[in-house]
């Protein structure tokens, strides 16, 4: 059984639709940073997942490939329904009312995001050069999404914030893969999606254990294993 590969996104795909969907995914990440860790991340994550599965659907419709359309529906269920719901539940478990905004202002965070987006466009230039059509022009959005995901992960000091960062990072990689290469081989795609689902589930269970063990605090503030305390 050879690893089946999907066709790349056709250069005939509507450039405006590709740019709109990639832009929406990136915008959702900007909203996540802007609103901060206190607000529910569910709506932006749903938007992000929907935009990503919309890109898959677009590729399927352009190529008239029913398998890709089915893949888009599965991606929607996983990335726009199941995972955002799981991530949001994680936040509830540690108490969303806890003040955690350690002096970070939204303006400063957004400025950082702007810098990362520019960086994303710079580092994606060689990749964009080898991908023909509108996908090549939009691939920088995937790279920028990934970098913003890193930012969310690094600065997130709560269970939910770290999960949001992790999911955004993964969505950034998926967007880059889809735009630059029409996705990865199908078997790998299924494996990656399964791994992602299981990692988020494992983190959810661990988050509950953290809450029990540390009495409502979160892993970001847990520092029992620091080298200096040994």
């Amino acid at each position: 059984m050879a690893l089946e590969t999907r066709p790349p996104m056709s250069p005939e795909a509507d450039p405006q639709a590709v740019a709109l969907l990639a832009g929406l995914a990136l915008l959702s990440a900007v909203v996540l940073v802007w609103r901060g860790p206190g607000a529910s991340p569910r709506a932006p994550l749903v938007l992000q997942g929907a935009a990503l599965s919309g890109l898959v659907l677009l590729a399927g419709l352009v190529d008239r490939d029913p398998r890709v359309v089915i893949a888009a529906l599965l991606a929607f269920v996983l990335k726009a329904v199941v995972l955002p719901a799981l991530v949001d539940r994680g936040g509830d478990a540690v108490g969303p009312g806890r003040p955690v905004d350690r002096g970070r202002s939204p303006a400063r965070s957004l400025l950082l995001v702007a810098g990362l987006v520019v960086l994303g466009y710079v580092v994606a230039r060689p990749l964009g050069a080898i991908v023909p059509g509108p996908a090549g022009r939009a691939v920088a959005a995937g790279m920028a999404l990934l970098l913003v995901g890193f930012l969310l992960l690094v600065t997130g000091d709560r269970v939910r914030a770290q999960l949001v960062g992790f999911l955004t990072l993964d969505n950034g990689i998926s967007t880059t893969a889809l735009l630059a290469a029409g996705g990865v081989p199908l078997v790998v795609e299924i494996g990656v999606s399964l791994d992602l689902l299981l990692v988020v589930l494992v983190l959810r269970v661990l988050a509950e254990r953290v809450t029990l063990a540390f009495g409502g605090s979160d892993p970001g503030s847990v520092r029992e294993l620091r080298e200096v305390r040994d």
Partner: protein
Amino acid sequence: MTVTRAVVFVWLALAGPFTVAVAVLVFRHRSWVLVAEVLAAGLVLVGGCGLLASTTGPGTTPVRALGGMLRVDALAAYLLVVVGAVGLTATWAGLDRRRASSRHGSRYATLVCLFLTAMVLAVVADDLGVTWVAVEATTIATAFLVGHHGGRRAVEAAWKYVVLASVGVSIALLGLVLLYAATRAAGSPTLSWSQLTTHPPHLDPAVTRAGLALAALGFATKAGLAPMHSWLPDAHSQAPGPVSGLMSGVLLAVAFGAVLRIERLDDALLGGTTVRWLVLAGGLLSLLVSAALVVTQKDYKRLLAYSSIEHMGLVAVGAAVGSPLALTAMLLHLLVHGLAKAGTFVMAGRILAAEGSSAIADVRALLRRRPALAVPFLAGGAVLLGLPPSGLFLTEAALVVAGFRSGLGWAAGAVLALVLVVFVGVGRHLVTMTLGAPSTATTPDGPSVAPAPVAPIALALVASCVVAFVGPLAGVLTDVVAVLGRSA
């Protein structure tokens, strides 16, 4: 050996542990749960030995299964032997009737078997994407094993382990995506390692270089190389002894196997040195981190974890030097370190159970008070320090010599200096814990220790001393080195 029979060994190594995991879930009988992990590791070892015989020697070819999705060459077969031998040591020495009959006993056994399955898949997969999926699956399988003991520190370690390891490995996925995009742009989309190395397409150098560098960095996270090592001391120190042994002795080696494949790809596709220099930098930095932190270390399980970072640093330097001598020493180092570390971690777990503390300061005069624990622990420590007749003495000497011969004398000199610092740091702590007279503050007889197997640890330590002198191994290692693009 016929190809058909060799394929049976592939399935024995891959489906064997998975079947045992399923069987544990179905038949939850205590005695079955007790031996399941040992059986799973034994199946991997038998499969690995069979495949090593099939893939080394004149006229042999890689064994393929599942339409080429699974491909076992001499390197994969050797790594399977490492997984099986070290896995057998850790699981056999870690047999625990109390754990097997506890409420979470079957879950523990199932996860260990799934962990072994994921590592085997990571080794035998030809497609780098499938290797990535399997490496990530090892994180999922071990998450609850790291937190098995419960308590604040174990939960914190498990959380950090999953987050840091998953993010690190995500970097590898991004790298593979870039590599795949480059192959698609060249008209032959693939992530098949054998296809890319045997018929290297002409790829865009900038995208390919970035992809390979990110893939190497991502897999190096799981291999415990600095500066992406921060999950390792926490996870290894909090996991149960046998799991620490498995993670340290096998998981790091399997993840490093993926780094080796990426380094070979860099050589085949770009004729470049990007990954090689990254691996060298990671190796030297790992040695530096280990040297800096073992001297002032206060926890003996973390001490062993930093020792693992040191040994992976040595392995990385060997891979970067890249000469046949260095690669042979590096491969032998993986096996010997795994065997010795698995046994030593299991003994560290038993000392923790007996003494009730993992602080070095709380354990004194162990040789007098608990010789049954102290002797194997000290012997394992001596092998890990590279004291003759440890096989690590030979491999470390060979790595340094190979470094000087390959024009990397400055790196070999740095390795020598850092290894000496680690030697002094670890040796001092081991002596403090084991030698001397019991102080008045020390309880002469602490909690009783349940009888546990010593034979596997003794066997592993003897093997780690004599394996370098086993005649046929030289021929086998020559064939493994040839897979990495170097002929002896």
